[in-house]
C-alpha cells in the first residue's frame, strides 16, 4: 500500500535541478510526481518515479545525497470537499500530515494526493476503513 518516494538534497544553485532531470532522463526513468521544498540555501526534491532503485543508484553514483521515504497515495474525488473529507478523518485520529503534494493524472476524475504522515500505518488503516482508495506503489510507478 505504501509508496517509495525518492528525496534528493539540492544546494540552491542554478542548474542543479536540471542535472537531476538529466540523469533521470538519460537512464530512462519517468517522473510520476514531484514536489520541491526550498529554503534560502538548500532544497529537497521529492520524487515518485517509475523505477525507484534505478533512479536512486544513478543519482547516488553522480554524488547526490538521496533518501527513501514511505508515503501514501490517496485518490481524491476531484470536486469541492474532496481533500477536506480526508483531512477531517485524519484529524479525528490525531494523525499529522508532515507534508503533502498533489498531482492529477490524465483522463480521470480523480486527483492523487501524496501524503507524508507521522504515523503511516495507522493512517493507511484509517483511510481504508473509510473506503478511500489508496493507490499502491506498483500501480503508481507505472501509471
Amino acid at each position: 500500500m505504501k509508496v517509495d518516494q525518492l528525496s534528493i538534497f539540492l544546494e540552491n544553485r542554478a542548474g542543479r535541478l536540471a542535472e537531476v532531470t538529466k540523469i533521470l532522463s538519460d537512464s530512462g526513468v519517468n517522473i510520476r510526481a514531484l514536489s520541491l521544498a526550498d529554503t534560502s540555501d538548500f532544497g529537497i526534491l521529492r520524487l515518485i518515479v517509475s523505477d525507484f532503485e534505478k533512479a536512486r543508484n544513478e543519482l547516488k553514483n553522480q554524488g547526490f545525497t538521496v533518501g527513501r521515504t514511505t508515503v501514501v497515495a490517496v485518490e481524491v474525488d476531484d470536486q469541492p470537499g474532496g481533500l477536506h473529507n480526508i483531512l477531517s478523518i485524519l484529524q479525528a485520529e490525531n494523525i499529522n500530515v508532515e507534508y503533502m503534494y498533489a498531482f492529477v493524472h490524465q483522463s480521470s476524475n480523480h486527483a492523487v494526493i501524496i501524503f507524508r504522515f507521522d504515523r503511516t500505518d495507522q493512517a493507511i488503516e484509517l483511510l481504508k476503513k473509510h473506503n478511500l482508495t489508496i493507490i499502491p506503489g506498483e500501480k503508481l510507478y507505472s501509471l
Partner: protein
Amino acid sequence: MIFDVEHETLPREELEALQLRRLQSLVERVYHNVPFYKKRLEEKGVRPGDIQKLDDVRHLPFTEKQDLRNNYPYGMFAVSMENIVRIHSSSGTTGKATVVGYTHRDVKNWASLMGRCFAAAGVGPGDILHNAYGYGLFTGGLGAHYGAEAVGATVIPMSGGATRRQIMIIKDFMATAICCTPSYSLHLAETAEELGIDFRKLPLKVGIFGAEPWSESMRKDIEAKLNIQALDIYGLSEIMGPGVGIECAEAQNGLHMQEDHFLLEIIDPVSGEPVAPGEMGELVITTLTKEAIPLLRYRTRDLTRLEYTPCRCGRTTARMMRVQGRSDDMLIIRGVNVFPQQIESILLDTDGLAPHYQLVVDRKGTMDTLEVRVEVNEGVFTDEIKGLQSLEKKVQGSIKEFLGVTASVKLVEPKGIERSMGKAQRIIDLRKEAK
C-alpha cells in the same frame, strides 16, 4: 619501566638547574658558531651572558621553519661538516625541505631518548619490534631503529610499503611491538582481515604511533582491531625526530617530554607571549643538547598544553596533552581565537555529520562573519526541511556554546567541498583579499 631513572625522575628544581646550565652553554655556542643566531641575538640586544635564569629564555629570538628553509641546506649548522655523521630531511611537502644534521653525540643522544620512549612503552630485551616507519631521509625509521636497539629489543627493519609482506613478517617473526603511523596500523589490520589473518590473535602487545595527528577515537579503534595498547609518540625532524615525548604505558595520559634535553614553552601564537600555566597555546622548543643544529625557541605551530602534575609512572617530566591543531590555522573572529579542529570536533560530535567541512570568513562592514559549510550525507539527510534546519541550528548552537562565536551553518551537497590530494583546505578567509 624507566630507562634513565636519573634524568626522568629529577626533582623539578634539579631539572631546572640542569636546564639553565645547558641553556647558557647553548646560547654561547650558537652566538659564536651560527652567524644567523649571532645576528638575531644582536638585533635583540642579547649577549650570551644575559641568560641568568631560565625565564630569560623569553629574551631569545624565535626560530621558524622558514629560517631553516632560508638557510638551506647547511646554513643553520653549528659545527663543521667534518663533525656531521648523519643527515635527515623533512619531506618538503609544504615548501622547500628542511635539512637537519647530527653529530656522533647527537645520534647517541637520540638513540637514548628513543630508548626511554620504548622503555616507557614497555618494550625491552626479548621484545621483537616491527619497525614500519620509513627508513631513509625521514627521521622515523632510523630514529626508532637505534632506540629499540638501545633498550635491547630485536628490531625488524621493515620500513614502509609492501603491506601484505609486512603482515606475513609480523605473523611469522612473532613481533610483540610495532611502530608506524596510526593510520598505517589500521591499514595493516584491514589488509590482514582480507587475508584471513586475525591480528588480535598475534603476539603483538603494543604499538608506538606518531608522525601524524590522530584522535582518541582512532586510538580506541586501533586498540580494538589489533588488540594492543596504542601509545602516542611525538617529535619533529627539526628538533630531533621521534622521541621528544611519549605516553607511558602505565597512565597513557599525556606525553612525557624529555625536558632535560628540550626546554619547553607554551606561547600565545599571536602575541608570542607566554600563556598562563596550564593554558593552551603553541609549543615552543629550545634544543638544550643538540650539537649539529641547535635551535633557539623553535615554533612548532602545534597547539597544546602542558601538565605538571605527578604521573603515576614515577616520571617527573611535564606531560604534553594531545595536540589540538596548528597555530597556522588559527582564525580570529571578532576577537575570538577559533581553530578549525574545534569546529571539526563539534561536527564529529553531531551524529552522522560528514567530517568534510570548510570555514568561510568574511567581513560585513566592521563585523567578521563565519560560515561553516558542512556536507550532508545519507546518515543525517531527511526529506523534511525542518529536520535539516534543526540540524543546522544544533551545530550553530554548539559552536556558540563551545567557542562563543555566532556562525551561520550551511549544508552543502556531498563533494560540495573541494577535495585536495594533500591537506584539505579548511579555511577561506575573504577578509584578506578585501584589505
